[in-house]
């Protein structure tokens, strides 16, 4: 296969001279082969990353990624793009910090600018109880070797001038914490960058190919039924986010996952006025401004099982009123578009990256709100698990068995209520 065309300022200048006629496809559009060593189901960031790391880290290149629509069109393409590792539980801290480290080198690793921008992720708090919680969480991060700092109101005023710090509001902000290395990345570019790099290593990326069945013989996966015909597979990795339960069901497996809606919205673009990512957890709203100028606002779940990818205006009212309350000048902007994603909500709020009870079958899923930031590490761990037929220490805690033994990883202490996390 042809070597990957390098991207750089020089290639861009050269392109300009030739009217940009010489750019090669970022990835091929191959016909599916009759079988592969490993097939990854789901062409979101996670699936594409898994394929890339299988090829790059484990030398397994006879790999296909099957995507029923267009790559990156799932939650990868519709999230609020926040990347951070500021978790409470040690298992999560380790995993997400590994992910953050991969993010830091990702553009150069892939030779595709995923625009990872470590602009700092801030959480603010209003009450003593919230203060104790957030500081404790950030102290815990320090013990895990992760960057974390405390912010006074004066710090907040300096870092986020748009934030309403006045004492007269319903829930005055008394302070905040920041993970300076946290930030955002360009969601689409993550899918495209992984796809391009994986393709260059020989991975077949097959779009418009829906998996409709999983073939299991004698307890072992042998292949997949798809809308483009059967495809044999030595091993199969599922990375289908909100669709995890459906795929697992095809192999006769039930998962502790429910599918829920999460809404996000953008304003019309305006000139930059906010460069931090700010989360007001108590009001369930997080706000950032993209490089194109839109204010990007995310909130909480609609709170009932749904696959519809379109949320309720009631939730929009919640999200936008909270945004206007804490960032008052946003109230002068107008909402341009809103959409929703179908979230794979696990029963403890933490992911499942594990072998499943069918030989050769593994999954990554149960990402809840938080899987975009996990993209590199999730792919990395799934690749490891498929290549070694065993989990890596990083993902060993994210097993399916934990729901049987009670060893759940419940960041929020919400209990086994999928929509509670």
């Amino acid at each position, binding site marked *: 296969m042809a070597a990957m065309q390098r991207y750089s300022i020089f290639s861009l200048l050269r392109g300009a001279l030739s009217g940009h006629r010489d750019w090669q496809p970022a990835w091929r559009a191959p016909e599916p082969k009759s079988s592969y060593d490993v097939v990854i189901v789901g062409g979101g960031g996670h699936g594409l990353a898994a394929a890339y790391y299988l090829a790059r880290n484990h030398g397994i290149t006879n790999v296909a990624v099957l995507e029923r629509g267009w790559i990156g069109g799932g939650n990868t393409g519709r999230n609020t793009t926040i990347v951070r590792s500021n978790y409470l539980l040690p298992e999560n801290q380790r995993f997400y910090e590994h992910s953050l480290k991969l993010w830091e080198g990702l553009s150069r690793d892939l030779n595709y600018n995923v625009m990872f921008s470590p602009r700092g992720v801030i959480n603010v708090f209003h009450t003593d109880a919230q203060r104790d919680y957030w500081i404790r969480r950030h102290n815990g991060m320090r013990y895990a070797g992760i960057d974390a700092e405390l912010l006074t109101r004066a710090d907040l005023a300096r870092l986020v001038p748009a934030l309403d710090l006045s004492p007269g509001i319903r829930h005055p902000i008394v302070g905040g914490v920041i993970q300076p290395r946290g930030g955002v990345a360009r969601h689409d570019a993550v899918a495209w960058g992984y796809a391009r790099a994986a393709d260059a290593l020989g991975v077949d990326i097959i779009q418009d190919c829906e998996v409709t069945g999983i073939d299991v013989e004698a307890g072992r996966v042998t292949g997949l039924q798809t809308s483009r015909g059967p495809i044999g597979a030595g091993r199969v990795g599922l990375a289908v986010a909100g669709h995890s339960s459906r795929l697992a069901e095809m192999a006769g497996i039930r998962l502790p996952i429910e599918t829920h809606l999460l809404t996000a919205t953008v304003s019309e673009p305006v000139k930059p006025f906010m460069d931090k990512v700010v989360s007001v957890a108590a009001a369930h709203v997080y706000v950032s401004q993209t490089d194109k100028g839109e204010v990007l606002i995310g909130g909480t779940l609609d709170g009932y099982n749904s696959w519809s990818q*379109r949320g309720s*205006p009631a939730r929009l009212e919640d999200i936008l009123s909270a945004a206007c309350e804490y960032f008052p000048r946003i109230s002068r902007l107008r909402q341009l578009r809103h959409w929703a994603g179908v979230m794979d909500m696990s029963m403890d709020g933490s992911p499942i990256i594990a072998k499943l009870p069918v030989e050769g079958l593994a999954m990554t899923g149960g990402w809840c709100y938080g899987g975009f930031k996990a993209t590199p590490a999730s792919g990395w761990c799934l690749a490891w698990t498929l290549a070694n037929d065993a989990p890596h220490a990083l993902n060993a805690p994210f097993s399916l068995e934990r729901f049987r033994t009670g060893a759940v990883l419940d960041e929020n202490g919400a209990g086994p209520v999928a929509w509670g996390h």
Partner: protein
Amino acid sequence: MRRQPFRTAEGGHLIDRTGPLRFDFDGHRHEGYRGDSLASGLLAAGVRIAARSFKYHRPRGVWGFGAEEPNVMVTAGIGEEARPNLKATEIPLSEGLEASGQNAWPSVAWDLGGALGLAGGILPAGFYYKTFMWPARWWLALYEPLLRRLAGFGPAPPAPDGAFHAKRRVNADVLVAGGGPAGVAAALAAARAGARVVLADENVRFGGDLLRAPGEIGDGDGLAWIDAATAELEGMSRVRLLRRATVTGYYDHNLLLVAERAAGDAPPGTPETRLWFVRAREVVIAAGAHERPLLFAGNDRPGVMSASAAGGYAHAYGVLAGRRAVIAGNNDSIYSVARLLRSAGVSIAAVADTRPDSEAPDLPCRAGRAVERAFGSRRVRGALLRRTDGRAGDRGERIACDLVAVAGGWSPAVHLHAQARGSLSYDEERGLILPDRPGGANRSAGAAAGRFDLDGCLAEGWAAGVAAAASSGHERAAGEPPRSPDRSAGDAPVFWQLGGGKRFVDLQYDVTAADVELAAREGYRSVEHVKRYTALGMGTDQGKTSGMAGLVLLSEALGRPVARTGTTTFRPPYTPVPMAAMAAGLIGEGQDALRRTAADDWHEARGAVFTAAGHWRRPRYYPREGTGEDEAIEAEVRETRAGVGIVDVGTLGKVDIQGRDAAAFLDLVYANRMSSLKTGRGRYGLMLREDGRVFDDGVVMRLGESHFYLTTTTAQHHAVMQHMEYLLQTVWPELEVYATDVSEHWFAAALAGPGSRALLGEAAPGLDLSDEAFPMMAVHAAAVADLPALVFRMSYSGELSYEIAVPADYGLALWTRLLTAGREHGLVPYGTDAMGVMRLEKGHVTHAEADGRTTPDDLGLGRMVRADARSIGVRSLALPALRRKGRQQLVGLSVIDAQARIPPGCQVAESGDMRPAPPLGHVTSFCYSPTLGRALALALVENGRARTGQTVHVASPVTGFSTAAEVVSPVFYDAEGVRLRG
């Protein structure tokens, strides 16, 4: 110079020519009329460059007539009043309006950013994905700030929106979206049939396309018919007409959002926006169609515009978009537009029809020709016409003009149909995307359904109205539908472009045909990929004019039919909605009511410092003259422990439980037994979640054989109520139990301290307070301070203590009377902080400890759990991970250095050096104990109870604090409970 050089001498049905209005654009003063839009005002004034494009800062002028306008977005208002990104076509002119251009410096007319256009060559779609990767640090320091500088349209607003925005929820039988001929006919038919109708149109006046171009209905003027029909509707009590009201979103179960804007001359006090939430049984989508552009080099120059818009400015506003026009298109509308413009005074230089054999003897026709290029840079100065059949030897015809009006056909406004998840079909022959199967109780009619003749629109609208009314149960005869002599199909061959060069597809985001082709070449083949790679259709117009052109170009580039390419997803809002309108009524207490206890007025008058407890506010402490916060809190603790204190506990949840099976039910709900309680006695109760984690705690009192009263924590009260109803209605429906929430009915205050018995004795002379008559955990009804009360003897503070509950209407009286009576007893009111200190000294747990992860055993409460696995949560306690050794357990920490204070959020570690290492646990609650003279904490620590006596470190790396502490029992104070006896 004439103030409105491009205004005709007469005509313009939307304007009122009596007395001009003045307005400012980009620092220049202009004149217009009441009824003008800013766009028509600018055109009348001869302002051609009214905007700059996003990426290349190219000069841009008005393109459209209404919601579809892609170019001219302005900032209206100045300073704090500025609102960015408003479409000039949607801003009503008002006296003194100040607006400015955007994305330009110093002005849109003379913008230095225009130089960027020269760099266009190295900035193709997605260029940033290919560069700016080295060195890594430069991304944040240099590259991204540069990109951000270029981003955005309008300025970020410096101040919040101060206007009043209203909301209204209404139910309707039929909502009609769009008030053109089809919509008005639908509304009239439905209303006459007896339906409750809402008719919404985004324009100032009903009429739709008839606002732009005259048409005939019945035997008269179309607009006159519309006026008569709307007058009839206006007179019907079950009809609501909404003007300037855009149906922005179509949601589940036929809920539609309609954003109504205030009129330009609305009286003060009129809400700036009113957001209607219309729940309709049936919806008629009569949203019309958007005129398509044609692609040719220079098609973005000021002066190139939609032909129907050019006609519309003349017809509706008496404004000439130019003096000498070339009109080009692929359908018959170019002739009517040409005649309309000519009669308004525009000289028609040429009418180019892509169809080879069309003719119009009264006009300078150029059949079989289209525009290949527009000349001029700051505004259009001419057009090059060329044969569309590509015949050799055609040297083209260059025609001077200052207006190129293009009519590329129509795209039905299928947005609402698609938002409702109706399917779309592509009519290859007509080149139209049409609504197919509806996704809700709706039907499309008129131009929105691909019907372009007036007669057909009226007929379809009428039929849709009749059908919608019938489906919602209204079948009165509606009469005959209106007719029109206009029965021309209006169909056009599909035609998009001629020639090469820089052809703009998405004017707003500067997406060119070359960008679309590049995306296809690079493998971004899905239409969704192209959208995201090029930003096509992502602007504030959401591709209303560019969408189809993009689809066709992509399909051509990939050599596949348009139907296979499909569309991108249509999403709300149809046009942008003010954030402030969405937030209306939901800011501050409007969203999050502040709950006040019955004694709240007293606390406030006393100057209490409050804290939030869920929705409630509670006094944290009562400030004292001459001392600080800590001293005041410590004094409240000391004085309560030494004498007597009173605290407002009105926020606790309270539930009345009655019914035959009440006792059995409580045994199942709590982890400990309640059925063994004697009447008149209470017990501390522990509620688990089904997964074995501690859910809530409180006190259960037995008032009668099958009558109980229980308290919940403030935070979990609603959750507990819901939980109990869940159990009663779905898990054990056979139990007869009535759980009634009485939290709002009862106010409660606790008297605590050795002096409480004496004080209560005085306030409740009829009550025998001796240990025998009134032991711990007993309850009595009595008059307290002459008020009907329930008195419980229980203690949270560890002192002798009574909780007194009265109906909340008497709450303030109880509180003030006790305080008055308590004056001689040294009664001190205390707040939640002092309460927190006292409970911590006693080792009582709260939500900081019962954080949703801890089991009863973790919290040292394991012995309370009854071994009956039927009770909620008990079975889970047998799961291996909940029985595992080495879990974190609740311990007390006594700080060794008596001067040290504990900061918030500490971890507990083996060593004090704060180097990365797994901590042993964390502090859950902490205080300085005035009673014991040192800092104390409760903590969850791995294997905690086994560490009793060991030294650990309490540390907060983010503040650089660490101190040593001894692991002790969580009960720091009066472990034997001597003080409870008083």
